[in-house]
């Protein structure tokens, strides 16, 4: 039985972790369900795990009530966020490793790869794939009205994800990032 390998970037993991409130959740759930059913093999990189860890820490700080943090010293605040984020990250690692052992997913990193080579490829990807200048009318942080333009395209970390997916011969690249759509063809790209 041929098992296709589907690389998932951090956005897919984060969307699944955040649940119904995330706009990408329904598609992320469908993908995870299909992996669980054995329709294809999920590929998760250490890069995605690190990004997820970063999102967890930052969301924890922004979602913890200000009064709660105000009432604590800097050391206590750090300790609280560290413990809470580790709890979640441990759950993530525990479940992903068990799924890997059950052959549902593969966890990969850049083991044995020359970092200079990776950066050269990322340079080529970024140089040859110019993104879009898009108009937005909200601030991403405070959500208030704020008319502005932003450059949207693949960044260095995105390029590293894509390079890694190519190196391990993935059949599909699943992402929440529209910037990848221009790369369809080298690997089949699925923007959810």
């Amino acid at each position, binding site marked *: *039985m041929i098992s296709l390998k589907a690389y998932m970037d951090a956005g897919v993991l984060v969307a699944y972790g*955040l649940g119904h*409130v995330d706009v*990408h959740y329904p598609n992320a759930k469908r993908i995870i369900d299909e992996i669980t059913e054995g329709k294809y093999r999920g590929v998760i990189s250490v890069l995605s795990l690190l990004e997820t860890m970063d999102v967890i820490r930052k969301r924890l700080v922004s979602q913890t009530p200000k009064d709660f943090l105000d009432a604590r010293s800097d050391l206590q605040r750090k300790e609280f966020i560290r413990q809470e984020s580790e709890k979640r990250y*441990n759950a993530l690692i525990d479940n992903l490793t068990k799924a*890997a052992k059950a052959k549902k997913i593969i966890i990969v990193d850049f*083991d044995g790869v020359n970092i200079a080579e990776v950066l050269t*490829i990322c340079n080529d990807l970024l140089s040859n794939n110019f993104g879009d200048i898009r108009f937005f009318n909200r601030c991403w942080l405070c959500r208030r009205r704020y008319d502005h333009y932003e450059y949207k395209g693949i960044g260095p970390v995105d390029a590293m994800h894509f390079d890694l997916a190519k190196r391990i011969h993935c059949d599909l690249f699943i992402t929440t990032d529209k910037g990848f759509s221009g790369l369809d063809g080298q690997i089949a790209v699925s923007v959810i």
Partner: protein
Amino acid sequence: MAQICEKGKLGVKTPYTLPFGAHEIARARRETVFPSKALTKPIEAYGIFEPIKVDVCSKEVPLRDFRSIIEIEKQVLDKPLEESSLKLCSKLRVAMGLSKEFEADGTALANLNGFMADLAGEEVDSTELVKAARRRL
């Protein structure tokens, strides 16, 4: 270990180190005619060789044989990946203070459903969340 170069779409020569047995696959591939353009897609996805054009080849391979070749290729290429994944799993678990020995669980991914839902707040877009996290690094 066989080292083979690929001329990618962007004109960059990328060296790929292939696991044992890959050079046999390479030889088989050079002698193989792919029955249709659609079926060359999985081969392109490997990113190792240019797909072979049907019009320059004289020999045809039945679809069943073609699928077998792909399947053998997959097994050869995926085995080392599988082994390194399990080693990495042990390292990750030890680093996070979890037990090194652990059971396989086919439904473990489902347990991650909404595991950080309490951090979501209002409706969010995970793409922006990840990008915002990167911007603040």
